[in-house]
């Protein structure tokens, strides 16, 4: 299954945000939900099971100067096996213009047994814009070892590299469950907060959650491992 969804937001000039484009294709359906104080809120509704290996899904988000958008998904997405040898791919690309804000706060990605999934995020944040970007990965359904999944995140701030990370789990990622990478945790994730108005904070660690100030801009990455999705979410509230 191939699908392209697109969301374009503009400031309405009165402190609010209008969605000038909101277009989806099964299984990527976008629904605007009640606005929250000038922030346009959109839910991504999965219109089919999956992603299944072989699916190629793309979501493009553009937040115009001064606009504010929050995107959620209604449920966790479960990467499942499909055609032998095929890979499922979910690519999200976002552009956040000056003075704009984007919150990308989806539910978890679950890598089911036998899946082969690539989740790719590419985000360009203009200098002075704000971002909250959360990624959560659950390695396998309950009591199950995951298939192959790669979560790749690439964020630029003001045209300069801010974050590049690619987390690989599953049978083709050597040592992924071991003490150098996840240490047996079945849930892991990160929350990136880009906020030019927030003063820089030093790194801290609490158990398996670290707050890490990044080098390439006014940004902090929370990174965590956890035994389950619920605990992980509690770690990634920023």
């Amino acid at each position, binding site marked *: 299954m191939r699908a392209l969804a697109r969301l374009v937001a503009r400031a309405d000039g009165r402190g609010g945000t209008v969605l000038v484009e909101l277009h989806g294709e099964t299984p990527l359906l976008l629904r605007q939900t009640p606005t929250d104080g000038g922030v346009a809120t959109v839910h991504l509704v999965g219109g089919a099971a999956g992603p299944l290996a072989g699916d190629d899904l793309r979501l493009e988000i553009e937040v115009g100067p001064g606009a504010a958008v929050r995107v959620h998904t209604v449920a966790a997405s479960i990467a499942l096996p499909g055609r032998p040898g095929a890979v499922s791919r979910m690519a999200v690309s976002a552009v956040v213009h000056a003075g704009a804000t984007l919150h990308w706060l989806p539910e978890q990605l679950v890598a089911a047994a036998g899946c082969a999934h690539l989740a790719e995020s590419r985000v360009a944040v203009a200098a002075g814009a704000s971002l909250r970007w959360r990624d959560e990965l659950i390695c396998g359904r309950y009591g199950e070892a995951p298939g192959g999944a790669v979560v*790749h995140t*690439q*964020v630029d701030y003001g045209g*300069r*590299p*801010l*974050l*590049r*990370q*690619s*987390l*690989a789990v599953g049978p083709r*990622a*050597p*040592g*992924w*469950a*071991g*003490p*150098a*990478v*996840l*240490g047996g945790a079945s849930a*892991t994730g*990160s929350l990136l907060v880009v906020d030019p108005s927030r003063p820089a904070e030093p*790194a*801290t*660690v609490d158990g*398996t*959650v*670290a707050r*890490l*100030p*990044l*080098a*390439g801009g006014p940004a902090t*990455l929370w*990174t*965590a*491992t956890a035994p389950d999705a619920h605990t992980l979410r509690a770690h990634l509230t920023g």
Partner: protein
Amino acid sequence: MATPSLLLLVADGRFPAGAHAHSGGLEAAVAAGRVTDLASLEAFLAGRLATAGLVGAAFAAAAHRAAVPGITDADEAAGSAGVAESAGSARRPDALARSAARSRTLAQLDVELDARTAAPTLRTVSRRQGRALLRAGRAIWPDAPFGDLPASPGGAHQPLVLGLLCAAAGLSRLDTATVAAYGTVTGAASAGVRLLGLDPYQVQALLVGLADACDGTAAEAARAADDPPERLPAAAAPLADIHAEIHATWEVRLFAS
């Protein structure tokens, strides 16, 4: 051309770059109770090789590529375009253009590696190790283009310095990536002997078992170096970041990282 002895010299833990002072995150992993024996050390080394090992080797290979331009180097082609190869008087501007292109590439690699190193402690450690390696490199190969490294306050990242140093030693790009990948596992392995009191023969056997994976990682890194800097490997390890920041808070530790 490098001799086999030069490869061995540069890869040797006794090369004066302070590598023995670092455990590659193992000390914190041991303290957290995650590495306790040979089996968990092996899993640690495999995970480290596939993440920090791959990224470090790819950046070392990319820095080597900047120092030893191949025929596919677009920057270099642009820099020397129109300069007659035989003209002696054109040599100098050619060298300047080459140096400028190299500086641009190295500066780009520097910020790309920062973006792959979320933990500030790991950024500091990489730059500190880069400084130590640079001292050795400058003393041994005074004519190498270390001056083209970005002038970051904390020093240049270790893989960038290593790439230039290996190029100066005449090593190939693949050899350079191998030195980098090998260093990420051998340092942590010998720290394992000290931290856990493991049998050194058994730990060495572990490294022998990882040799194929190390060569495979180096080959992948050397290939990746042809990609633009933003596409270089970015393999992440959440616990590496977490362990590094825990370790940095300790008042007493055996290893610097």
